[in-house]
């Protein structure tokens, strides 16, 4: 296994800077960093707390050649950005990470063991405060049932040789259950949510899937009422590259008002879902970045599943593909009603 530092140092020969991680983030876990010199790169690390999708920085660094350390999931964002011509394949060097074995939900550790507790999150084991714990239990939801263990594109490969992942992803559960429309159950939104709050072993998605439309409406209203419009969901998203001209923050067009309430928050998320149709690679950064814990991936996962069903398309898996909503198929597009 060649180490991440020397790979970054090697790639620095070809690019202006490399996006990676250092161990010195807040709370004692990995934080994103930029390396421009071999000396700076000495500080680079890779461990299971390297959760961030660094592709978010690529559209902001278009005037430079950039190396990027990308997990399998992150590499899909890079691929999608290239496919959308947002970045130039020739100006980015991808250091793909293979066999990570899933990354760690640091928030979950903090929640149960206190903020800043010493964490040693290797790719095959997890130590909290010096004691080994079941790594599986603290994996991020999105890593369960991962379909992107290998990077889609890479120029260099970093073998992380982590443990294998088992378990059913929250997302997968939602997908299965949502495909039946979920109407006509007796579970109310409130019951479902308090069950989720009380019993962490039951994934929220499973409960969500059992709700009918009215219950879901209540569910979202309650979720969105927490939103403070910090836009972390948007800013953490590698595909949200409209940046300063985002339609969530303008009166022309006037899709949302400037107030902070559940209604505006709902419209914001409807915009995000709509704009990411066929573009979301499911990296989960929006949900991870949300400081008030709104389960945004419930919607994104659902949409990604529908798009795969309708158009046989997964964003960020094919540099040459035509995004499904920017094209059409005269004969093939199925329609459920006439």
């Amino acid at each position, binding site marked *: 296994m060649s180490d991440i530092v020397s790979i970054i140092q090697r790639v620095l020969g070809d690019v202006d800077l490399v996006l990676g991680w250092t161990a010195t983030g807040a709370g004692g876990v990995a934080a994103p960093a930029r390396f421009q010199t071999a000396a700076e790169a000495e500080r680079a690390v890779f461990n299971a707390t390297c959760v961030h999708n660094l592709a978010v920085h690529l559209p902001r660094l278009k005037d430079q050649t950039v190396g990027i350390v990308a997990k399998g999931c992150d590499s899909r964002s890079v691929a999608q950005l290239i496919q959308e011509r947002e970045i130039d394949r020739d100006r980015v060097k991808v250091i793909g990470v293979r066999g990570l074995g899933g990354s760690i939900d640091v928030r979950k550790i903090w929640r149960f063991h206190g903020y800043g507790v010493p964490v040693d999150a290797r790719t095959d084991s997890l130590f909290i405060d010096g004691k080994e714990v079941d790594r599986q239990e603290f994996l991020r939801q999105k890593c369960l049932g991962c379909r992107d263990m290998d990077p889609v594109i890479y120029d260099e490969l970093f073998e992380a040789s982590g443990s294998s992942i088992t378990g059913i992803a929250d997302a997968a559960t939602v997908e299965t259950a949502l495909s039946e429309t979920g109407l006509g159950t007796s579970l109310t939104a409130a019951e479902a949510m308090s069950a989720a709050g009380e019993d962490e072993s039951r994934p929220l998605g499973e409960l969500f899937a059992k709700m009918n439309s009215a219950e879901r409406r209540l569910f979202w209203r309650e979720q969105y009422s927490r939103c403070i419009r910090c836009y972390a969901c948007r800013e953490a998203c590698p595909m949200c590259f409209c940046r*300063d001209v985002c339609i969530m923050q303008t009166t022309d067009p006037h899709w949302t008002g400037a107030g902070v309430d559940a209604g505006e928050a709902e419209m914001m998320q409807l915009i995000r879902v709509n704009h990411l149709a066929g573009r979301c690679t499911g990296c989960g950064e929006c949900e991870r970045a949300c400081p*008030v814990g709104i389960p945004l991936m419930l919607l994104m996962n659902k949409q990604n599943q529908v798009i795969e069903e309708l158009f046989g398309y997964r964003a960020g898996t094919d540099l040459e593909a035509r995004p499904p909503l920017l094209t059409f198929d005269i004969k093939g597009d199925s329609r459920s009603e006439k």
Partner: protein
Amino acid sequence: MKFLAGENIPELLEKLSLLSEVWAPRELRGSGGTVMFERWRSGDPLDLEHFASLSAKDMVLPRTEKLFGFSYAFGGAAVGNPFGAPAESAGGIPATAGESIRITAAEPAGNVVLFGARACDAKALTVLDALFDQTDGKGYNDPQYRARRAGLTVITLACVTSDPACFCSSFENGTAEKAGSDLILYPVDGGFLAEAVTPKGETVIESGVNSRNKVGSARGPGDSDPETGEAASGLTLFEESALETPVLAVTAKVEGLEGLRQKLAAIFDDLEFWQAETEKCISCGYCTYACPTCHCFNIHDEMRGDREGVRLRSWDACMFHLYTQETSGHNPRPTLAHRYRNRINHKFSYYPENQGEILCTGCGRCIRGCPVGLDIRDVLRQAVECSASPGEGGDR
């Protein structure tokens, strides 16, 4: 000293909620463990262990607040054919479209008891007072803010521990800070010692004793409940105690911040420094919105159709590009580095200079919740180091 048994807290809140809205920290359903100050209603759980993700500034500066409503009224007598506009002047072309605007005031804010704030949250209120409630009459007085502030009672939970993100001890009294609190609860075995800091705090203690009488029948203190035979619990909520207030020995401090203001001024133009510090920042507004002292706002009209609307005041954040975007298209703070520089300078240089208070109480929320692990203390340390050795940017 008064003693409040832990198990009596719900009852205290119940009594308080008869007269005011009560807000208290609680873990929210389906939120992955997010704790926030929420409107407390009978039977709601409390979370006094975890730190709330957002500060308590919502109580005095809500994320969105209606300033007033307005509606346009038009026309009037429309008779005959053709219909004429009522405001038509003798000259033929009317001066206006005959419209009048009706303003409806916002509902006045009610009284609020905030339960379970921390010293850093409470202190932040006095920091905000320095801007919004300049009672000397010379400065700015914000009527909405003042009304809410006057109706707010803060019951603070004293910190006996800290976590690695706390740095309140860097500023004056740290965990022992009493400013902004009306009543402080010190955790002791089995409950809390209550110290009233202000008359409002005294009222809380009194209401704990007497509220039964206020709402119930004309029973005196100590009378037993005629139905259950139990002593009225109002008497037992705050007991006299001989215990001493515990010494809050927790320190959470960033060292070496002396002369920060001058040092920040020295590196103001060092844009490279600010770029390096913000390289991982993604420009979201969480740090400003979670901050108990950040207070920037936007005033905007929201229409419902073309005839009526409301004027709202909502939080705004200096980390947003649009915050300083000018209509011409020019933006004086075009990059993240410019915006972050302003944020730090506002907190540690301009506000102290103008308002005499540091715009930070060391609560650490911006550190705990930052999606990219940016630590404001690192930035301050770097700023101090960098300005100490100009030309050597240090390890960026």
